[in-house]
């Protein structure tokens, strides 16, 4: 992909918007990642990883299909989810200022962060003000996106992940590889080994029985819950009409973090806002069935500002842009902002199933990551420019998306952005080849001449009808696949010979 593409290109798409091209600050954790094809090839070589992923994704895929099939009105729900999100995004200014007013009325404090660095600085200064040197965290994609844990560590503040899978990732000095199941790439034996090596209070003789692993994590976390002064969360939804935030979870750790500490700080992307409570009904049906294949998730926590004697005494909402308004300015790409982070698209994606999440070089992996990440970070780095191509455009993701994001359409659109960014480089090999191919392929006469040349080359290939080896870059094909030899005559030559020439 292009090394020459400049951030100017990204900026030109959203005049007046934040400079989303400043990728160095927007998602700091993944700088220097190799492009997707190389990272994917490495992942494919890990047999254990492939077994773990194939087992996990095929299980959840089947369960989701069953949970969705139970609802006769699934397609209407899906259309409603899309419509609510589209309406909200079209009036984002109205709903965000309403949300700010209602949260403030309810005793909360609202902060606006233009990018990741600003959000992290706001959170760090809020934690510093409490005097705490550690925080407990609810699983949050947004704080993964901003690299909050690393930013807090730089301020000597320890952030403890309390979601079981996030805890496994954190203890393993690892990166999450799935939106819902961040440790999907680990099996239980690997998890046991991580606990034994990294968990200070691990019970001796821990086996890899899931019930023992969960009990060890519970004991480890319980102490932190009871002593934490500050909790940090994201939110699945934020309701403008009432200033209510909503977190949907399975384990109950989130409920602990949201209710026990004196101070709660929630970092929320601006696209998470919903107009009213009644809109929530649609998403509480769409989200659990799509993500965990449950009819209803075990814990749904909602809170509105602060209430004396009940829960946190101080509540801060940090509303994060970090490239979202720039994505909103893109008429095709903006549909990615409808995403409710269910991860159904990851679980059905044949590419994700084989390479896992790390190859995507972003906390947002899989098909949705391939359209969100390049919009938030731009297409200037090799990994970001390769993400829109990390798909066969098979359409399985679009089919399961609960808010009908046409991911293939957005991928193709972003490929166009990548190619446009490459046009500034004069000698780009792929562009020259594609330009030449386009010249041939737009004329029946020129295509006919090219076919005659191909047919003439048959003498070089032999009579097997198959080509076993081609020169670069086509050797990428013939490494594992034969290529068909050109026939003695193309269809158009046959037609001219048998049906009396052109019509």
């Amino acid at each position, binding site marked *: 992909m292009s090394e020459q593409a400049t951030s100017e290109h990204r900026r030109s798409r959203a005049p007046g918007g934040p400079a989303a091209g400043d990728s160095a600050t927007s998602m700091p954790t993944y700088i220097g990642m190799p492009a*997707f*094809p190389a990272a*994917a*090839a490495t992942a*494919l070589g890990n047999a254990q990883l492939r077994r773990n992923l194939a087992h996990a994704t095929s299980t959840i895929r089947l369960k989701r299909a069953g949970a969705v099939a139970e609802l006769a009105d699934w397609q209407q729900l899906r259309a409603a989810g899309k419509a609510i999100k589209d309406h909200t995004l079209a009036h984002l200014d109205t709903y965000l200022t309403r949300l700010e007013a209602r949260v403030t009325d309810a005793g909360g404090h609202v902060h606006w962060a233009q990018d990741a660095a600003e959000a992290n600085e706001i959170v760090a200064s809020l934690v510093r003000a409490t005097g705490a040197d550690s925080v407990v965290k609810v699983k949050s994609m947004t704080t993964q996106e901003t690299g909050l844990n690393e930013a807090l560590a730089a301020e000597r503040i320890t952030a403890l992940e309390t979601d079981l899978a996030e805890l496994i990732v954190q203890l393993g000095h690892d990166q999450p590889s799935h939106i819902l199941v961040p440790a999907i790439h680990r099996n239980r034996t690997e998890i046991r080994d991580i606990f034994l090596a990294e968990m200070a209070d691990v019970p001796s003789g821990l086996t890899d029985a899931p019930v023992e692993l969960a009990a060890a994590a519970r004991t480890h976390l319980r102490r932190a819950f009871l002593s934490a002064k500050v909790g940090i969360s994201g939110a699945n939804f934020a309701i403008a009409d009432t200033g209510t935030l909503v977190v949907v979870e399975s384990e109950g750790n989130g409920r602990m973090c949201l209710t026990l500490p004196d101070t709660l700080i929630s970092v929320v992307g601006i696209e998470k806002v919903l107009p009213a409570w009644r809109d929530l009904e649609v998403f509480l049906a769409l989200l659990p069935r799509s993500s965990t294949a449950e009819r209803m998730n075990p814990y749904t926590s909602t809170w509105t500002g602060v209430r004396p004697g009940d829960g946190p005494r101080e509540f801060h909402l940090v509303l994060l842009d970090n490239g979202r308004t720039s994505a909103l300015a893109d008429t095709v790409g903006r549909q990615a902002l409808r995403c409710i982070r269910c991860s159904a698209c990851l679980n059905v994606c*044949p590419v994700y199933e*084989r*390479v896992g999440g790390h190859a995507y070089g972003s906390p947002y992996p899989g098909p949705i990551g391939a359209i969100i990440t390049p919009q938030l970070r731009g297409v200037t780095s090799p990994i970001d420019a*390769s993400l*829109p*191509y*990390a*798909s*066969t*455009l*098979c*359409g*399985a993701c679009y*089919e399961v998306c609960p808010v009908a994001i046409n991911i293939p359409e957005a991928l*193709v659109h*972003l*490929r*166009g*952005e*990548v*190619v446009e960014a490459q046009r500034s480089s004069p000698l780009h090999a792929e562009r020259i080849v*594609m330009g030449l*191919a*386009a010249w041939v*392929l*737009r*004329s*029946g006469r*020129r*295509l006919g001449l*090219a*076919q005659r040349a191909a047919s003439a080359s048959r003498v070089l290939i032999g009579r097997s009808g*198959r080509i*076993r080896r081609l020169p670069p*870059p*086509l050797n*990428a*094909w013939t*490494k*594992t*696949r*034969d290529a*068909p030899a*050109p*026939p003695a*005559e*193309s*269809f*158009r030559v*046959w*037609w001219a010979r048998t*049906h009396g*020439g*052109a*019509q």
Partner: protein
Amino acid sequence: MRIALFITCLTDTLFPDTGKAITSLLERLGHEVAFPAGQACCGQMHFNSGYRRETVPMVRGFARAFSGFEAIVTPSASCAAMVREYHPAVAAQAGDAGLAREVGEIAPRVHEVSGLLVDVLGLVDVGAYFPYRVAYHPSCHSLRMLRVGDAPVRLLRAVRGLELVDLPGAAECCGFGGTFAIKNAATSAAMCADKVAAVRGTGAQVLCSADNSCLMHVGGTLTRQRADVSTRHLAEILASTP
């Protein structure tokens, strides 16, 4: 009916037997086949690879070649989907209102083989005979873009002598994806290896699809593995007679 054949650049160049099969099948069914010689490529490879500007003249060339035909048939569900779903968008994006109008008229008349036979001509039994065990791979674009549904399977079930076997994971992509097969060759090959294992597990003698691109991909892996399974486009099976 006079039906124009949009052969597609890939089938024209590498798989002429498919075009011959469509011609003989439609002529056998009493239709007249036309082949506009000015046709070349629908532009899918360029469009899907991000070369939007380069796609515009190809869309223009397609419209010039096929305007005025009542029905257009193509052996590729993928190319049919490109014309139907994206030609109007390309024309609109290029700001060419005349082209957009022309493309808007042509696009709905473009049919993949099974769509033409079942939905337009109302046929299921086309009088074919093919005494082999066949697995059918529904290409992603036939399934999820063009939404041909069970039309190909209904046609195959009506073929005399043909035994249709169930292909596990049939709806999963074979890993071709156009330039994906080159750009992400390792991932593409891993997907194809699983598809080929599924095909070989069925005991089928022939793998059938409505897209030669998928067949070229899966078939290329089958022959590399020296598997005893050949590949046939749907039209070639439907054109077969005793």
